[in-house]
């Protein structure tokens, strides 16, 4: 029982972190129907941005409550910078290009970013230790322990998702985003600039990924250039599972993915060596049998 509860908690923490990435996938897909394959890399560069700040800029003895917000800012700034450059330079020129072009481009961007960091960031050819900039130790509830960093992730991720949901539902820009997602041409007739909305979507997604990257770093205490690809796939699966285009769905899907990975690693044949595989199996099954996900609507119903 204790093991089960522990694995559930671990899975939920992973889910919370994946959820922050999944939000970016789901928003971009909702607006321009692009699987932004490189979104995982946006998360990855955010982690390295925060690492850079903590390792090379901040003084050694800085307190966590100063360092953590600063690192979040650095990660968010780097992630947003990369995402904006990516949107402007790689995706926007492709409007009207042939069908496979955006996806192949996204793949190219993903590889380019991974390799640039691996080759040029000092020490990035091997995993790097991420600075532990949060309360050490853990919270114990009966036999179940949860690192304080995990508690932080579990608190922050749903909070940010809720804030995003409210923003999209209530604000002027959010309304423009929903309008563009539903009917891009008519949205243009309302005076909405699709370029601006798309860019805003990339920026918001990247910002969330940046925060996610710092939370990921302090929780797992180690980063490398592959974290973007891996977690990006998890996040994409989560977004599809929850119903791509839906904010609540992305968080829900992410928690499911986290649970599947952590429980499969414990209980299913093959153990942790195959936990990754079960996520992919789930992904294939979902895409085949319920591509609209939990909360999405069948594709044919889109206006």
């Amino acid at each position, binding site marked *: 029982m204790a093991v089960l509860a522990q694995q559930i908690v671990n899975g939920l923490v992973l889910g919370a972190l994946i959820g922050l990435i999944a939000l970016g996938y789901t928003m971009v897909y909702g607006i321009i129907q692009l699987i932004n394959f490189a979104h995982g890399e946006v998360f990855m560069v955010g982690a390295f941005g925060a690492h850079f700040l903590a390792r090379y800029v901040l003084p050694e003895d800085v307190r966590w409550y100063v360092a953590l917000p600063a690192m979040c800012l650095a990660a968010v700034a780097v992630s947003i910078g990369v995402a904006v450059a990516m949107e402007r330079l790689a995706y926007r020129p492709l409007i009207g*290009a042939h*069908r496979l072009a955006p996806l192949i481009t996204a*793949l190219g961007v993903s*590889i380019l970013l991974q390799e640039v960091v691996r080759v040029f960031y000092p020490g990035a050819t091997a995993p790097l230790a991420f600075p532990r900039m949060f309360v050490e130790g853990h919270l114990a509830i009966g036999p179940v322990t949860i690192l304080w960093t995990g508690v932080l992730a579990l608190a922050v991720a749903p909070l940010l998702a809720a804030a995003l949901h409210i923003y999209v539902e209530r604000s002027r820009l959010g309304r423009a985003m929903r309008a563009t997602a539903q009917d891009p041409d008519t949205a243009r007739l309302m005076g909405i600039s699709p370029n601006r909305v798309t860019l805003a979507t990339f920026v918001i997604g990247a910002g969330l990924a940046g925060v996610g990257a710092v939370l990921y770093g302090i929780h797992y205490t180690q980063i490398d250039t592959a974290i973007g690809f891996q977690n990006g796939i998890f996040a994409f699966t989560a977004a599809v599972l929850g119903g791509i285009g839906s904010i609540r769905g992305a968080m829900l899907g992410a928690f499911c993915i986290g649970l599947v990975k952590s429980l499969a690693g414990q209980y299913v044949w093959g153990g942790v060596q195959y936990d990754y595989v079960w996520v992919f199996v789930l992904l294939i099954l979902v*895409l085949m049998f319920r591509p609209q996900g939990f909360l999405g609507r069948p594709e044919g119903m889109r206006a």
Partner: protein
Amino acid sequence: MLVGALLPWASTVLPGGAYPDRATLQFFDAPHLVSGFRLHLVLLGVLAALLSRARKPAGIGVAVIALVHMGFLIGLGAPSIGGPVALAGGLLLMWPGLTAPAPELKPPGPAVARLVLLVAFAALVWLVSETLTAGGQSRATNPYGGAEFLAFCGLVLALACALSAYGVLAWLAALTDRHRFFAFSVMLVCALALPFTDAGTGYWMTVASTIGVYAATAIGLNIVVGLAGLLDLGYVAFLGIGAFTAANLAHVVPFPVAALAGTATAGILGIVVGAPTLRVRGDYLAIVTLAFGEIFFRAAQNNIGGLTGGANSIPGIPPISMFGHAFDKPLGVLPAGSLYYAVTVVMVAVAMVMLVNLRHSRTGRAWAAIREDEDVARAMGVRTGRAKILAFLVGSMMAGLAGAVFAHKLGTVGYESFDFSESVTLLAAVVLGGMGTVPGAVVGASLLFVLPEKLREFSDYRLMLFGLALILIMRFRPRGLVSS
């Protein structure tokens, strides 16, 4: 114009005079040989002076050579004046627009056409051999090999552009098309003649046959992506399945049986992977194939069922052996590896024939319809499900066969050869060469697998450059480099 033509030539003289010891001579120890950059520059200068339409291509070539030259000189901390002068000359040549109209090339009679094709393909093989060997094989004997190779590439690029400017390439393509069978036979013979050229050493044969394996695989991928428009991001898994199947059977059965088994296993799994295509389309399909690829990779990494050797890989696979002769040994005057090279040439040839025939077949038209618009295709009565599965089946069988050869040729197979970056490289080869074109996949695979071999200095940047290439090609030449 005359000044422009003279400048490249001048630059070959200048550094020799002003900086006698280091500037250029030491770099390109064979300045006036075929691979020497000086000869290239002089050649291009003469070309530009004599043929007005070739001026721009010559300029491009000169500029490339000059940039390579400058880059390597600066890297050595010995900047010379020759480079900038040559660059200026090249730019000057590129400046003016076309002057003379392209000459009309009449289709000649069959006999002449065959002769022309024979000469053209012989020249192509010679060029390939020179390109392969340009700069030598080892950095120990020639530290500037990379630069020499790139300079040679500049020359080849310029010649290709010049021929294209005079409409010769299009003319040749038309001839090839008219005398398809003859052209194909000549090409096959010429390709098989490569071991008799300068590239006929064990080392280059090994490189060439590796390229052949990947070229055949890329053609298979080209069928799936280029013809049917189904983006497969886990394609290298089929190469792996073919390789692991053959590796496990290598000690039990002769090569042809192992190859067949590898092909069949890959084909069956191709159908399994293709099955979701009935329900999933577009971007989602790409993700499904990626997921299958990752599942295969993880399974192979963990030595699933003891079939893949896991981290230890499968060592000691015997070489192909037929008629009592092991394929890794020299045969008569032919260097070791020539036989593997011949096998891969035949394999690529078969794949090319298959691609051409499929493209013009009923199935090929069905694929084209699906690629354009699946719903419309279905409405027109195309059995889309069958056609899509067939694309996966053919593509995966091709890769499976290539995988079997791959396993025997290397003698060892490990899961690392089949990771995601290999799928990306293959995709890059297809995209680079032009999706759906026949020579495209071969040209792309050659480029992507020769360049890292020639430019070890850049091996760290290999994937980075592939990523960049994917972005740039989609942006500027979405139909690939070949289809111009």
